[in-house]
Every structure is written in C-alpha cells, then in structure tokens.
C-alpha cells in the first residue's frame, strides 16, 4: 500500500465523524433560528389571545324610568341642570325592579355594582342629547361592571367553589338570570378607542395615550428631522478633516449606544429642574426623544448621502453650481428616500420608547385627553406599563389590547419605510 492510499484511508475513516459534526453544527443553526421564531410566535399569540376580549364589551339591557320629579328636571332644563342631576337613582330603581326582593343593605350594594359606575354618565349623555326623554321610560344598554364582563367572557370560572370565586353566588345568579333572558349582550368596545384612562377597567380607553404619543412624535419629528439632516449634510459634504469633526463623530456613535434611561435623566435634570418646564408634557417628551433618535437618523442620512454617486456632484459643479446649490438641489433630493426611511425607523423607535419618558413624569394617571403639546399626557408604551401594573383583572386584557395597537402602529410604520425604500431605491 502506498503512502497516498494510506492517507486516503485515514481521511475516509474520519469522514463519518466529520460529517456528523457538520450535521450537528448545521442543525444548531436551524435550532437557534427556530427558537427565535418560536419565541416570536408564542409572544404574539399570547398577546393576541389576551387582547381579543378587550375589543368586546358586555352590556346590560335595563328599562329605566326618567321620572321628571325625581330628577328635578323638565323638558326645558338647562344643560347645567342636567349635568347636576342624579342619574344614579333611576338605574338603581331599574335594577331593584328587575330583581325584587333584594332588601339587605349589602345585597343592594352588590346589585348596584352590576352596572359600571360609568352607566349614570351614559344615561346623562342620552338625556343631554335629547331632553325630550325626560319623563319617559327608555331601554338602554348599560356598560356592565368589569366583574360581570369577566363572568360573561368566562375569565371567571363559574364552577369554582364560592369561596375561591371573585363573583359570589348571589351575584352570579343575577348574572345568569339576565343572561338567560337575553338582557346581557356584547358589542364592539368603541369606548376603548374613544376614552382616556380610567381606574375602572370597563371605562378605560387608549385615546389619550394615542394622542399623547402623536403629539410627542410630532415634536420629535419637528426637532430631530431638520437637525439630523443638517448634521448629516455637514458631516458628509462640508466637514473638513480635523479633530473637532472627529470629536463630533465619536459623540454621535457613542450617543447611539447610550442607554435610553440616561436621556431621561438628562431631561429631568436639565429641562424640568433647571429650566422648570412642565412635567408630563409631550413637549419635553418630544425633546428628550429627539435627542435620543438624532444619532439614528444622522447615521441613516449619512449613508443615504454617501450612496449618491460623485458623478452627480461633479456634473452639477461642472455646470457652475456652487457647493451649496449642488448639495441642496441635486444630492439631497437623490438621498431623500433613504433619509426618510431612516427617519421613519427612528420615529418607530421613539414610539416604542418608555424608560426616558418615565423619568420626566409622563407616568402620571391622566384621565383627560391631551389637546396640545403642553397638556399633561401619557404615551402608548407607558399606558401599557401602567395597566400591566394595575391589580384589576380587567386591565390584563386592556394591556394586551394596547400592546396590539402599539404593534400595529409600529408594523405599519416599518412597512411604510420598507415600501418607500423599495419604491425609490435607485441602483446608481
């Protein structure tokens, strides 16, 4: 046997083992991708299944008598009088009429808690819209309390022994009796999209948070886009090679990696304590977030400007354009799609950011819907954080629903960015 033959034999004898190793290595790669994939799937299904109940609302159909004398109102009552009238009584009477024989004080309290405390405002708004209703008997779908809602959505197990169950037997019997007679219905939860935050899960909505996010992003965009584009233009087209410019570049790269909570500390110390600007306002949130997203947009804009071929610049300069005209009339329009893509991605990042906004007081409980960038408000991710902490079970589904809304916004922003990139991408 020659040496060559011997070597081949040695290689061949080891082949099986080596191929096995190859297979193991390759499957390790597949497994790690599969883990990431699985995790995403579990996370999304978890959020979606928890969120779905939040989009329907349980309602109780009751017939209330709006007695003019009891309400101390008549057809000509002013808006102020209607606002001040006690609409709780008619609802309570309707409940007592539906379940007569409830006499004990505690039982009555239980009975009244079948409807949400928002029911009286529901009734008031109906009367405000149509004062002719005073003196009539009307049938209204009232918002049910979150406990009733939980029973109807099977979030509370009816078969549990009474001592382990949040809703006790008496209340459960009422709910089941109403359910059997068709007085309980479910409808799409419009309130979730049209109301601000509330302590009551059945009345809480995300409109305030969505508008807060909107105003915050508006400020962020207005500040960071022009500044970032200007900075990118300067660094790519005008900057001389010197230490100061190097220092700027090092700063930008480092700021991109500074933890976001540090920007919150900056906002707290500088804007709130030093300049005594208002707490909780989208204005401050927007300023802090724009400082945070600046590096992202600058880096994206720079690579977009860098991708514009030099021939374009040379042609413009050759035709007698000044440096400034070349950049603003020719380079910038060519780089704009890339810059916009980077900006949208930066905005998406800002939309999902929570930690720095916690620092500047956007974490307060705010019921009112913000009307401007100066009003106290909260943002979507912080609403998620606040609700995730709330002890009431009803907030669990609200949290998931708010996450879903947040993800829908983020995914559509990213989809727009990808679409934009695809549409305007030029191969030079």
């Amino acid at each position, binding site marked *: 046997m020659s040496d060559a033959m011997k070597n081949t034999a040695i290689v061949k004898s080891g082949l099986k083992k080596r191929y096995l190793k190859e297979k193991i290595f390759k499957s390790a790669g597949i497994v790690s991708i599969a883990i990431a994939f699985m995790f995403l799937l579990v996370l999304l299904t978890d959020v979606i299944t928890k969120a779905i109940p939040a989009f329907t609302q349980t309602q109780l159909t009751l017939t209330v008598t709006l007695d003019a004398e009891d309400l101390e109102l008549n057809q000509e009552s002013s808006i102020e009088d209607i606002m001040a009238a006690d609409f709780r009584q008619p609802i309570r009477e309707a409940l007592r009429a539906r379940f007569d024989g409830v006499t004990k004080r505690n039982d009555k309290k239980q009975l009244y808690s079948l409807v949400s405390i928002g029911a009286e405002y529901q009734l008031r708004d109906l009367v405000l819209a149509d004062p002719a209703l005073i003196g009539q008997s009307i049938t209204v779908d009232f918002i049910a309390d979150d406990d009733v809602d939980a029973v109807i959505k099977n979030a509370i197990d009816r078969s549990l022994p009474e001592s382990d169950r949040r809703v006790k037997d008496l209340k459960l019997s009422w709910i089941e009796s109403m359910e059997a007679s068709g007085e309980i219905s479910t409808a799409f939860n419009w309130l979730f999209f049209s109301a601000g935050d509330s302590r009551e899960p059945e009345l809480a909505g995300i409109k305030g948070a969505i508008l807060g996010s909107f105003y915050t992003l508006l400020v962020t965009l207005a500040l960071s886009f022009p500044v970032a584009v200007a900075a990118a233009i300067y660094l790519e087209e005008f900057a001389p090679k010197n230490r100061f410019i190097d220092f700027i570049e090092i700063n930008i790269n480092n700021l991109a990696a500074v933890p976001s909570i540090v920007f919150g500390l*900056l906002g707290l110390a500088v804007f709130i304590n030093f300049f005594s600007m208002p707490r909780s306002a989208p204005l401050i949130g927007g300023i802090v977030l724009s400082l945070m997203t600046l590096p992202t947009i600058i880096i994206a804009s720079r690579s977009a400007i860098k991708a514009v071929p030099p021939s374009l610049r040379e042609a413009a300069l050759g035709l007698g354009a000044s440096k400034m005209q070349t950049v603003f009339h020719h380079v910038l329009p060519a780089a704009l799609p890339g810059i916009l893509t980077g900006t949208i991605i930066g905005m998406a990042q800002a939309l*999902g950011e*929570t930690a720095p906004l916690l620092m500047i007081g956007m974490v307060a409980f705010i019921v009112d819907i913000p009307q401007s960038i100066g009003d106290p408000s909260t943002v979507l991710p912080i609403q998620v954080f606040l609700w995730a902490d709330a002890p009431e079970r009803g907030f669990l589904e609200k949290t998931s629903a708010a996450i879903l809304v947040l993800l829908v916004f983020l995914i559509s922003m990213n989809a727009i960015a990808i679409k934009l990139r695809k549409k305007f991408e030029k191969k030079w």
Partner: protein
Amino acid sequence: MTEPRQLIDGVILIYGTHEMSISALLLLLAILAAFGFFIGRQKIHLQYKKQSNKARINTLPKYFGYVAGLAALIPALILLLVLEVAETPWINHQISQEISSAQLPSGDDLDLFLNDIKNASTESQIAALSDEKQIIHGHYQRIVKTTQWAKTAVVLALSVLLGLWSLKKINTATRARYLFEKTIEWLLLAAASIAIMTTVGIVFSVFFESMRFFGDIPVVDFMFGTEWSPQTAIRADQVGSSASFGAIPLFVGTMLISFIALLVSVPLGLMSAIYLSEYANRSVRAVAKPVLEILAGIPTVVYGFFAALTVAPFIRDFGESLGLSVASESALAAGLVMGIMIIPFVSSLADDVMSAVPQSLREGSLGLGATRSETIIKVLIPAALPGIVGGVLLAASRAIGETMIVVMAAGLAANLTVNPLEAVTTVTVQIVTLLTGDQEFDSAKTLAAFALGLMLFVTTLVLNMIALYVVRKYREQYE
C-alpha cells in the same frame, strides 16, 4: 368686588397665553424675515434693471433677499432663546426679593412658598391662598407680565433694526450668495454640534447631581457597601432611620441578569447569523431576516409585560414541579427574555463582521477539503473574532442599560445573591423607582438615582469605546 375679579381674569388671560405669545412672536419674526426677503430682492432687482452692463451680474436677486431675511431672523431667534432660558431664574430672583421685603412667614421654605404662588392659576386656587400670598401672587403676575413684554419688545426691535440695517447695506457689489452660503454652512455645523451638546448635557446633569450625592454619602460607601435600602424612615427614632446606599447588590444583580441574557443571546445570535449567511438559501433568508427584524422592533415594554406575566409564572411553576423554590420575579425570567430581545442585535453585528471576512479565506479552506463547519469554526470565527468580541461588548452594554424588562419583571428588593432563581434588582430598576415616587429633589434618595445613572453612563461608555475601537481596528486588517 368687580375690580379683583377683573384683575384675576386678566391674570388668567396672561397665564393661558404664555405658549401662545411665543408662537405669535415666532410668527411675527417669520413675517419680518419674509418682508426683509421681498424688499431686499426687489431693491437689487431694480438696481440690476438700471445697470447697463448685464454681463457683470453674477448673483441672483433672491440671494440678497435671503441675506436680508436671515439678518432679520437669526440674531433675533438666538436672542429669544437666550431670554427664554434666562427668564425663569430672573423672575425667581425678582420675586424672592419681593418676598424678603414682605416677610416670609417663619419656618416656611422659600421654594415651597414660591411654588404655591406659581401653581395657583385658576380663580379658586388663588382664592385659597393666604392673604400674604395673594399679594405676592399679584406682584408675581406683574413681574411675569413686564418680563414678557420686555422680551417681546427687545426681540422684535433687534429683528427690525438688523433687517433695516442689512437692507440699507446691501447693493449689487455685495457678495450675497457667498454670505448666504457661509451662514447656512454655520447653521449646518451648529446642527452637527448638537451631538456634542447632548453629551455635555448628559455628563453635566448626571455628574453635578452625583457630586451633590457624594457630598452626603462617601464614594467608598456607595461603591463597596453591601446594603442598599434608600428608604428613610419618617421619624428619626424608627428602625432603619438612616438609609444605606451600598450599591454592590445592584451591581451584582445587573451583572447576573446581563450574564443570563448574554448566555442566551450570544450563542443563539451567533448561530443564527452563521446559519443565515453560510448555509441558508434565499427563501429561508427571506423569512428569517424579517422575523429577526420584528423581534428587534418590538418595544421593550412589551417584552417586559411578557416576561412578567407569562415567562416568570411559567418558570416558577416549572421550578416548583421539580421541587425548586423559584421567586416569582426571578432573575432567570428577566434574563431569558432580555436575551431573546438581544438576539437580533448580536446576529446583525455578527453578520456584518462575518461578511467582512474575505471570500478567499473560505475558498482556501474549502479547497483543502475542510467541511463547511470546519471552515467556519477554524477559519471564519478566528478571523472575525475581534469583531465578534466587539459585538458581544455592545450587546453587554445593551443588556446593562436595558430598563423596561427589568422594571417589570425583576425585583425591587436588593438581594446580594448570584442564584438566578431568586429575585434581584438592577441599577436601572432602582433609578426608575427612586425617581418616579415622591419628587423632593434634594433628598439623598433622588440624588442616588443620578449617582447610579453616572455609573451606568460610564460603564456603557467604556464598553462602547472598547467595542468600537476593537471593531475598527479589525476592519482595517482586511481593507
């Protein structure tokens, strides 16, 4: 009775229009600038018309308009900014003097006193103030009003004066385009310098507050103390009346959770990058890359919710079924979820450095008969090692600075332990809890948050610097 009422109405009017007055002022400045632009352009346009030798014209009339417009706008804007910044301290100074002459009730804190006055904006709030405070409130409103008027007048005057001056000065011999372009270039430079100002702002804000903190608590106690309990008791004789600020448990907790996160993310991220760049075909890549991008785009608060409500209970129940006692806010749950969050980060960085390795190295190894995995392990990874190390350092800095996952899923109590099944707390969790509670700003408790912030900033800065240095050094090798 009518007179105070009118006064109060007037006060409310001024109060409500503070924001509005600024936007009105900005609008006025814009109008003045536009005037400057049109008049300047028109002036040069007319002069050009009179000129006999049209060939000597080398600047468009609009550039003269831009120069006049910018002269009316930019100095006035800078002045406005400076005045806005100086306004509050000035008003505070003025009103403090008023108070010292009107006698501050003994034992009342000056800042609190001022806050009461400033916060009263509605009629009922003003009525609720004490008589003395109502008088001062009136003074305060008067000072605010004069300051605002003075500010508006000065800014507008500067704008008009400079606008007129530049309009008078410009003529066809002015190098208007050059002036305009130089100004724009300076503005661009100013925009680029904001990055420096942000860094300076961060350093100053955390540094000065930390220095105040270290004035109360010795640095050594903070850095090497093993007990962290920032809550001070209300009465001095209660148990735990003195807070202790030993940050070692926080550092250990942060390390523990970050270590778990890296243990998850580095192998998974690296392996998925290797598989995607070396093995996967186009269709697999087309699915897997967006999945990783979606993972990277999910807000951290969502991960935190998932960690706290799904993963942590699952790990606890699973541990209990094995007979282990697992805390419901275990470090393991937070670390695992954080690890998943960092996978796309590691994977994209690894992808970058692996694709920077020259193709010839791969081909050489494969040509010698090595299998793909042997090529990767023995050639690619050693060649890309500095870049991979840099990526891991960046991932570590991400993990240390991550806030929402740990705020929602890690504990609040500072336990000095390295057992991943127990609850630990981290630096970022403590910053959030110290600063989102009560808001007296001078207590050691709130200042401690800034000291922790300083630690966080310095640590991540050093990690980033090393990582960027290593990555850059490595890139140069193959270029």
